[in-house]
């Protein structure tokens, strides 16, 4: 039984004039138990929308979303979600933000704090425990969100560009942390990113979404050996080969998306 | 000012095991309700062996409603409410009548002097009353009707008393209006208005209304009166004694007894002057005047929609039993 299964899902948004806008269309996707799946695609193609369907935040207009074989009916606390936009609680200190999950899941106050401190250390925020989110830099807030979600060790982990505000180095460190965690608890991961190298370095499978109403254009199994060292893997020849394949698929979509919205075809490289 | 505070706090000290009665008065500082506070200042409640808790209340029907709801036992207000209540199936009665004439004055704006000489000229005018549905409302309509003018041809406007009344005159919002002392003196003193009808004297009132018109009285629910005859008697004793005391003293002496803040706004001389001009309104005995209730019924029966067409047993609206049996307290 697959951990995550999307069966021909379509998501439409109603428009004011009574029409609809189709964000994703007939998208099918399967993520096995313990599989790390990266999703790439042009901006605005429906990646975030796909994640909201899996998490139960939105319902498909058509088709079905299943998690562990059960249709998604609402929010499931076995699912972790790192949002693309800020979603940390502005009225809680960094520590309390990260400790929220364990507390909600019934851990004692002190146990939760201990865990939270540990996670803050892992994301490199020791010493900022007492800050409020508005006192952090963009990258720091993103890391708080990461720790907040990872601390719960969810069985299904959805991440929407989690490393986008981080510098290369921190990003590499976070990736290594993420892979370690994933190795320990083996959740099913859907990881949305714009960084193809990152996608290939981390994932078992890379899914390319088409422009326009998003649907799956191609899936690539990444058979690079594990454990991987994120900083080094990109220099392997196998990596380069895969990279080029995926890039080919992606490039066409991005060009298509851009051409469409500029109506100037020659601009798209 | 301190004598007021001092006297009040000492007199409100509860006498041991004396019954306590709460009375709501429809405008305590108006001179027409003067006996209620005067009795307190004279210490007559205490001497009569009753604790009285006076609550002030602005004009209107609320005092009566509160009495019926059991929130207060007695109301210091116009006798005619008893008639209105009977019309609605509630029974209450006046146990002592303090004013045999209304003490109201119909004032008219000075610039209308000569143009308005009697209620017969009210046609088309705007007339001030304290509040819709109040006794001044019915009295005004009665006077208008009696002078042969259809009340519907006038506009009646609730303007309250005091500043608002005088302002209404100055702003020409009303041509004439019915009010009591000390508003009357205030309006006269700066020549805002002149007196059209003076119901502060027995003669004036008879001429205007065609009979006595019992106004201020203490009324209570009949049922309560019957079950607390002792207490009622004590109260009535206090009031009859007060009424007697008023007859034996000059306006200045009376004013001396009243709390200073009662004349703070208009000044003591004006207050005394007002009292002088209307001392005659006070009922020397406390007995209900013979023809009074009839006049009231005539007024209400015509203009109060709730009384119109109802048959009223006037004898149930008052009793002289307690006044007749009253013994002076001092």
């Amino acid at each position: 039984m697959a951990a995550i299964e999307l069966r021909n899902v379509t998501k439409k948004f109603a428009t004011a004039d009574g029409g609809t806008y189709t964000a994703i269309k007939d998208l099918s996707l399967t993520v096995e138990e313990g599989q790390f799946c990266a999703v790439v695609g042009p901006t605005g193609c429906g990646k975030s929308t796909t994640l909201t369907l899996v998490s139960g935040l939105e319902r498909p207009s058509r088709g079905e979303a299943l998690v562990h074989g059960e249709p998604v009916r609402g929010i499931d606390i076995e699912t972790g979600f790192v949002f693309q936009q800020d979603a940390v609680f502005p009225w809680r200190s960094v520590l309390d933000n990260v400790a929220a999950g364990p507390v909600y899941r019934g851990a004692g106050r002190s146990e939760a704090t201990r865990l939270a401190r540990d996670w803050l250390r892992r994301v490199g925020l020791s010493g900022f425990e007492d800050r409020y989110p508005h006192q952090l830099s963009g990258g720091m807030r993103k890391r708080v969100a990461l720790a907040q979600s990872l601390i719960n060790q969810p069985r299904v982990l959805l991440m929407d560009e989690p490393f986008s505000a981080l510098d290369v180095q921190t990003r590499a460190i976070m990736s290594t942390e993420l892979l370690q965690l994933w190795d320990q608890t083996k959740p099913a991961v859907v990881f949305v990113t714009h960084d193809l190298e990152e996608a290939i370095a981390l994932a078992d499978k890379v899914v390319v979404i088409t422009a326009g109403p998003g649907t799956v254009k191609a899936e690539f199994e990444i058979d690079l050996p594990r454990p991987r060292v994120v900083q080094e893997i990109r220099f392997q020849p196998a990596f380069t080969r895969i990279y080029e394949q995926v890039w080919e698929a992606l490039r066409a979509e991005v060009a298509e998306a851009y051409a469409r919205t500029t109506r100037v075809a020659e601009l798209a490289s | 000012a301190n004598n007021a505070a001092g006297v009040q706090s000492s007199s409100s000290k509860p006498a041991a095991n004396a019954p306590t009665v709460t009375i709501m008065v429809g405008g305590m500082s108006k001179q027409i309700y003067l006996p209620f506070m005067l009795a307190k200042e004279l210490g007559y409640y205490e001497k009569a062996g009753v604790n009285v808790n006076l609550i002030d209340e602005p004009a209107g029907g609320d005092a009566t409603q509160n009495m019926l709801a059991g929130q207060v036992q007695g109301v210091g207000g116009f006798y005619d409410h008893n008639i209105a209540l009977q019309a609605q199936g509630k029974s209450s009665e006046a146990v002592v009548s303090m004013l045999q004439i209304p003490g109201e004055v119909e004032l008219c704006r000075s610039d209308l002097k000569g143009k308005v000489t009697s209620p017969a000229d009210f046609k088309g005018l705007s007339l001030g009353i304290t509040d819709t549905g109040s006794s001044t409302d019915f009295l005004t309509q009665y006077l208008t009707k009696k002078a042969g003018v259809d009340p519907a041809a006038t506009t009646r406007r609730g303007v309250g008393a005091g500043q608002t009344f005088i302002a209404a005159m100055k702003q020409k919002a009303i041509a004439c209006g019915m009010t009591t002392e000390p508003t009357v003196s205030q309006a006269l003193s700066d020549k805002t208005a002149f007196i059209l009808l003076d119901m502060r004297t027995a003669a004036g009132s008879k001429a205007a209304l065609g009979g006595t018109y019992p106004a201020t009285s203490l009324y209570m629910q009949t049922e309560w009166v019957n079950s607390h005859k002792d207490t009622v008697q004590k109260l009535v004793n206090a009031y009859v004694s007060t009424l007697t005391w008023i007859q034996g003293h000059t306006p200045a002496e009376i004013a001396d007894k009243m709390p200073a803040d009662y004349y703070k706004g208009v000044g003591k001389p004006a207050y005394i002057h007002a009292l002088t001009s209307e001392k005659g309104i006070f009922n020397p005995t406390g007995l209900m005047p013979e023809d009074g209730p009839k006049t009231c019924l005539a007024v209400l029966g015509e203009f109060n929609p709730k009384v119109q067409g109802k048959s009223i047993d006037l004898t149930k609206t008052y009793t002289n039993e307690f006044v007749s049996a009253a013994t002076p307290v001092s």
Partner: protein
Amino acid sequence: MTDLHTPVTPSAHPAPLGTPPDEVQPAEAKSGMAAARRRRVVMAGLRVGIVAVLLVTWQLCVNAKLVDPFFWGEPSGVWASLRDWVTIGTPQGSLGDQILVTLEEAVLGFAVGSVLGVVCGIALGRVRLLAELFGPFLKAANSIPRIILGSIFTVAFGFGIQSKVILAVVLVFFGVFFNAFQGAREVDRNLIANARLLGASRWRVTRDVVLPSAFTWILASLHISFGFALIGALVGEILGANRGLGLLIRSSQNNFDMNGVLAGMVLVAVIALTAEALITLLERRLLRWRPPQTHGGAAVE
């Protein structure tokens, strides 16, 4: 109160070019709208049901002599009063006239009061000096009982429509003012900074950033303010008038006619609800740009 009937489906805008036309007309969207309509009807039915149950219980209590209609009125009496007013007219003239008089006062007071409130609120919210200077005065003024103000206003402005309107203005003003003030201060700093950098003058920032962003606050206060304007008009009438619903209520009260008092209140409530519906319409128009609110997003709950 915003939009108790948020449509279930979030609103969006015309599909951009390049999106293939939708061959299948979205049956779901339609059925969603139908469901919303059905829900609305059910809700209205439930509300009517609640009212009916209350009224019947009340009437039964009166009939069983558990409740004294002298103090509390009775539904049949209220109905009779209303019928009389409509068919025969009120003691002060036709019912329509009374309603119109009160409505005129309330609408004027509402308009003036809310405009003043918004202008002052935004001004004080934007200009710190003003807020520091006048804030305490406004707060102190807010604690003055309006009845007393009412009688001062009648002395100052006479017994015409003016004093009632001013009373309504005063009642409306404070609620709107304090919300507009707070709304102006809640504006995202980044948005103001952005507008300034884009070249907006302080006035444009106020108009284009502070005002729209304070709009939720202002609208929230407008929802209650029409009720306040009505109260102002009614109280003004009670304190000195010869027409209007307030006088109708007051004279019923003075005649110990509880049913009349309640009938007057029913009329007032109907007016308030109508006005509220209009404000909600306005709100929907003005806040089109917002993502659907939490109530709507059933899934999130």
